[in-house]
């Protein structure tokens, strides 16, 4: 059986979906995380619990939501609660197994910037949307999955601003800061997957996307990238994964994602 055709973005979304354990409670942001979580719920993880920061617990949307507060989330949730409650009673105590984060910049310890680029804070070159739920998702979820396309502008030696903490500057920093989740366990990109080194927490290329090379990955990263001696290659998307993913995406044709 020949593998079906697929894009690097599709591989990235499917890789993210596969990282979600059935039955886990997952804090989902809009865009790729929501697509990945809804894909997982329709494939290997039918009991995945989707939680959106708008206050929907256990949403089971029949189509991809178009915003974090889409009515389809409230309509299909086990419970809709207030925004203070979602952060205080559900995220903060560590009840949520997996959080998704993206960002404009990530560094080698999985710290993330979604605030400003260039200049300084008061006079930035580019003003980004800011923190949103990210700092506390990064702190309190049992584990974090980061999903970002690789490029030297995004994978940088030094962040312009630390919005959310991955591993700080070294192993042990999370514990010293009182952050109770494990931190980012995977950075899922279009070229492959990075995971923290067990001893140093430095992000290390452990898997390549089908067709991608270590050289491509090194060039797309703004620091000397650590690479596992023999990185594996991600399993290519199955026909089912691709079919379900494309059906999901079709439900939001014409909308924003």
């Amino acid at each position, binding site marked *: 059986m020949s593998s079906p055709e697929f894009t690097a973005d599709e591989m990235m979304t499917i890789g993210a979906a596969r990282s979600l354990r059935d039955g886990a409670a997952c804090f989902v942001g*809009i*865009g790729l995380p929501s697509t990945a979580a809804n894909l997982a719920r329709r494939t290997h993880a039918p009991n995945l619990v989707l939680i959106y*920061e*708008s*206050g*929907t617990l256990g949403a089971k949307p029949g189509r991809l939501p*178009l*915003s*974090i*507060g*889409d*009515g389809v*989330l*409230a*309509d299909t949730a086990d*419970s*809709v609660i*207030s*925004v*203070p409650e979602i*952060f*205080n009673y559900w*995220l*903060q105590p560590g009840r949520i197994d997996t959080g998704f984060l993206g960002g404009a910049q990530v560094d080698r310890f999985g710290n993330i910037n979604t*605030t400003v680029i260039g200049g300084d*804070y008061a*006079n*930035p*070159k*580019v*003003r*980004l*949307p*800011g*923190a*949103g*739920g*990210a*700092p*506390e998702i990064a*702190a*309190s979820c049992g584990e974090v999955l980061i999903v970002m396309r690789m490029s030297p502008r995004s994978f940088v030696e030094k962040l312009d*601003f*630390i*919005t*959310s*903490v991955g591993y*700080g500057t070294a192993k042990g*920093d999370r514990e010293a*800061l*009182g*952050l*109770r989740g494990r931190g980012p366990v995977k950075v899922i990109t279009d070229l492959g997957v990075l995971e923290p080194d067990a001893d140093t927490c430095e992000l290390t290329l452990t898997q390549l996307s089908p067709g991608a090379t270590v050289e491509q990955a090194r060039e797309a990263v703004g620091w000397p990238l650590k690479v596992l001696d023999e990185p594996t290659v991600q399993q290519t998307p199955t026909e089912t994964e691709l079919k379900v993913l494309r059906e999901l995406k079709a439900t939001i044709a*014409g*909308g*924003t*994602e």
Partner: protein
Amino acid sequence: MARILQLDEAIAELVHDGDAVALEGFTHLIPVAAGHEIIRQRRKDLTLIRMTPDIVYDQLIGAGCARKLIFSWGGNPGVGSLHRFRDAIQNSWPVPLEIEEHSHAGMANRYAAGASGLPFAVLRGYAGTDLPEQTDTIKTIECPFTGERLAAVPAVNPDVGIIHAQQADRAGSVQMWGITGVQKETVLASARSLVTVEEIVDELTPRPGAVVLPQWVVTAVAEVPGGAVPSYAQGYYERDNAYYQQWDLIGRDREQFESWLETEVFGAERSTR
């Protein structure tokens, strides 16, 4: 008992130059018409407060109504940046915009403290981030029992809290359902409050998941059908997703924005968006 007012009367009476004003809504039930009325009445020097300032805040900022923004995520949801917001921060256009920036968890707790009559709230937040360096509204506090260090943030108590809801009764009690975000806290934390509603009904029928604000904690109610467009009002209308994308083009350019302002806000007795 809440007073039932026309939207323009309510804004004229409740919102003054220099006020701290929160127009809250989390994707759903955003009080857009009330925001446009504030622009139409040319309020200025406002401190605008909102967890998720989106396009109506972009419009208020672009129109020069705001001196300061207190927020946790400023973007056009699902589309990208807010260009008027960026232009104000990066280029002080049309007026300089001071910012006070938090995370969602911090802002939600600031509202909850405001609603609770407490001067501050405690949370596990901000540790290790650069946010506390940029504001004096994030401090650390020690647990008097365990010695653990946590974040403290001051309450927000807006002069005016404005939200949109589906229904009010004739006494001014309000019912909203679906995603209700931090709207209850916004009204309870504010010195004065205005709720725009899709319709005023004889009786509020209890609904699953509904949040009710009794008339005695609401200052004024204005009936404004479609008052949340282009966001949505569950049970009334859907979100106009295309408009959020169109806004990206309008907001990107100062001239286009000013032409939009003239036509859609100043030129309209009541804006359709």
